[in-house]
């Protein structure tokens, strides 16, 4: 039992931090621009593919720096020539614009890299088991990912709270007109924020690419869970996103560890006999079986009972 708890906690934290790495950029963009970027997972995918392409030419470490920069520049161009234009049509138009972007990015990625998975590997310098616990190995590369996401969390928190840029950005969100009068270029600030946000997605892509499968459908598969993270955490709250990531990571891993079903709970009782007929389909479904669906259940529950999310400051 102790083993299960320990291993599940460790796996949950590792997975949760990977989720946070992917979702942090999304939170940054939302908190500062009020835009939920539905194409965020697509930029994450671009990061993975650029990471793959650069690391096979220049090595992993240059890729870790260059790929986010490239993706950030693409993101800035998207903001400058696309998002800014639809901004005046309101939030629904912004959502729809980023929604349309997902189709285009996917098709472009398929045109360049094809539809089959690419062979994106863990860099040889980090390709070893960091430690072994209850006969399971924990790869160094995953721990490296963990470090990066902790670093990003602290860095972002510092940048927003304690730097001049962070102050201007926060002010520009609530009073763009006033900030503009004070001589700051609000449009440029928004463009930078969007660039940084999708750049963070690209960092996640470069790191998650070798752990997961780098393929043109990766954005579509990951997208929904990222929105769960930012909404459950409270839209725009960095601390909330971290908490939600960890919560989802832990819920999912612990759920997998337990094989409890309705049959185990009510089996043998009189009511159980009736239930087993009526609920034949879900009678033997275990908690483990539905683990990956739990985050969506959590999302719906949170939005019913605590609409602002775990740590959100405003109702969405």
């Amino acid at each position, binding site marked *: 039992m102790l083993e299960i708890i320990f291993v599940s906690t460790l796996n949950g934290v590792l997975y949760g931090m990977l989720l946070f790495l992917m979702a942090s950029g999304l939170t940054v963009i939302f908190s500062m621009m009020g835009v939920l970027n539905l194409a965020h997972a697509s930029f994450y995918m671009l990061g993975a593919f650029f990471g793959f392409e650069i690391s096979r030419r220049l090595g992993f470490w240059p890729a870790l720096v260059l790929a986010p920069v490239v993706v950030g520049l693409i993101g800035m161009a998207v903001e400058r020539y696309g998002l800014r234009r639809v901004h005046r*049509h309101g*939030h629904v138009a912004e959502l*729809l614009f980023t*929604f349309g972007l997902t189709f285009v990015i996917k098709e472009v990625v398929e045109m360049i890299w094809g539809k089959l998975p690419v062979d994106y590997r863990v860099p040889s310098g980090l390709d070893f088991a960091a430690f072994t616990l209850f006969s399971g190995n924990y790869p160094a590369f995953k721990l490296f990912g963990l470090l990066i996401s902790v670093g990003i969390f602290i860095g972002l928190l510092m940048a927003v709270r304690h730097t001049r840029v962070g102050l201007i950005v926060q002010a520009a969100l609530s009073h763009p007109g006033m900030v503009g009068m004070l001589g700051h270029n609000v449009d440029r600030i928004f463009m930078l924020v969007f660039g940084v946000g999708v750049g963070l997605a690209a960092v996640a892509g470069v790191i998650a690419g070798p752990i997961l499968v780098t393929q043109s459908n990766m954005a579509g598969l990951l997208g929904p869970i990222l929105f769960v993270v930012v909404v459950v955490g409270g839209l725009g709250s960095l601390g909330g996103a971290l908490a939600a990531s960890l919560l989802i990571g832990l819920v999912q891993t612990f759920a997998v560890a337990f094989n409890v079903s309705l049959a185990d709970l009510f089996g043998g009782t009189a009511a159980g006999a009736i239930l087993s007929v009526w609920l034949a*389909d879900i009678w033997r479904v275990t908690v483990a079986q539905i683990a990956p669906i739990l985050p969506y*259940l959590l*999302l719906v529950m949170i939005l019913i009972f605590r609409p602002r999310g775990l740590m959100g400051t405003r109702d*969405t």
Partner: protein
Amino acid sequence: MTDARTLPRTDAIGGRRPGFLARHAVWIALALALLLLPYLFSSRLALSTMSMMGTMIIFALSYNMLLGQTGLLSFGHAVFFGLGGFFTVHVLNAAGSGDWPIPLPLFPVVGGLGGLAFGILFGWVATKRAGTAFAMITLGIGELVVSSALILRRFFGGEEGITTDRTDVMSFFGYGFGPQLQVYYLIAAWCFLSIAAMYAITRTPFGRIANAVRDNPQRTAFIGYDTSRVRFIAFSLSGLFAGIAGGLSVVNFEIVNAAQMGAVESGSVILMTYIGGVGNFAGPIIGAILVTWLQLILSDATQIWPLYVGLLFIGMVMFVPGGIAGLLAMQAPVMAARKLHRVVPFYLLALAPGIVALVGLSVLIETSHQFSIRASYGPQLTLYSIPLDATSPLPWVAGVVLAVAGGILFMRAERLARDAYHAAVAQGGQG
């Protein structure tokens, strides 16, 4: 999207009250069109295509009750379409094996009731919020339902879904609904009824309040309306019509499966509705027809048709937020002022370089597609009946030249057309 443009009223022109025919000209024309289309296009493919378009029209219109009329962006609308289908298929199978005296044309009602029931259930959860939170709840509900559907194999039939035979149920005045033509007329009848019903809803006080909730929820709440209740009613009604569409889809295809409730379907109804135009009642009709056609026919011409649809969609969001119907509706004042002859030449002037630019763009896209993905089929491709070689510079240069030159000329002509339009409208206003 700012004002509720609905069908232009035909009784505005002239002082005397027009007769029955004139007042209902649109509906009579629609009914006639639905009746006569199979005579124009009698191939089986055309009938199948039109049947599918009919279902999609209802589906897209039901979606627009949310997006266009009430301002709610849902990412899970296909859930109601699919659930409506599942209820229909189960009742259809039960009726077929139990000889229930229900004729086939009534079965979409079952789908509608299923859609309504779940619209009420999920609506109760989702419509407490609006805006981004609402969008995310619908996304979550969609994921939940689809994931559960694969687990609940008895009701949803697992991956392969549930099949049925529409000819097993009681015949309807001698019609057995084996041939596609009869199914087409069944769908056409339901399509007509649903369009009329949904149009009628937009004209009721409820429809107007829904518009108000979309445009300014605070003010609507202020004058005493419960906005979340309005959203809830709109959501439930939209589930009803989506369920009817799902039921018709079962009658048409005789199969339904879990994938029909998924994100891809929910996405395509957004594309249909928005490309057609959310601000106009008829917009989704245009969108449903166009996008269904693209799905079925453009996919023959090019494998990367989703790229074109994506670009079209982004283009619409950026430049034509009113959709195709919005563009058409903009011509109403010009026509009312009888100045159409003033603007049409300018439209044609803009259209020509616009088409050139699009051709150039498609040459570039298709050539790079041939060059990258289809490389193993050799560099030869045929575009617009012209053989091209992706390795030679010709198609690339031609593509760039056409796209850039066409683009620049289009922007110039577009400005001229815009001026002409404004001039025509202004003159119309004076005269």
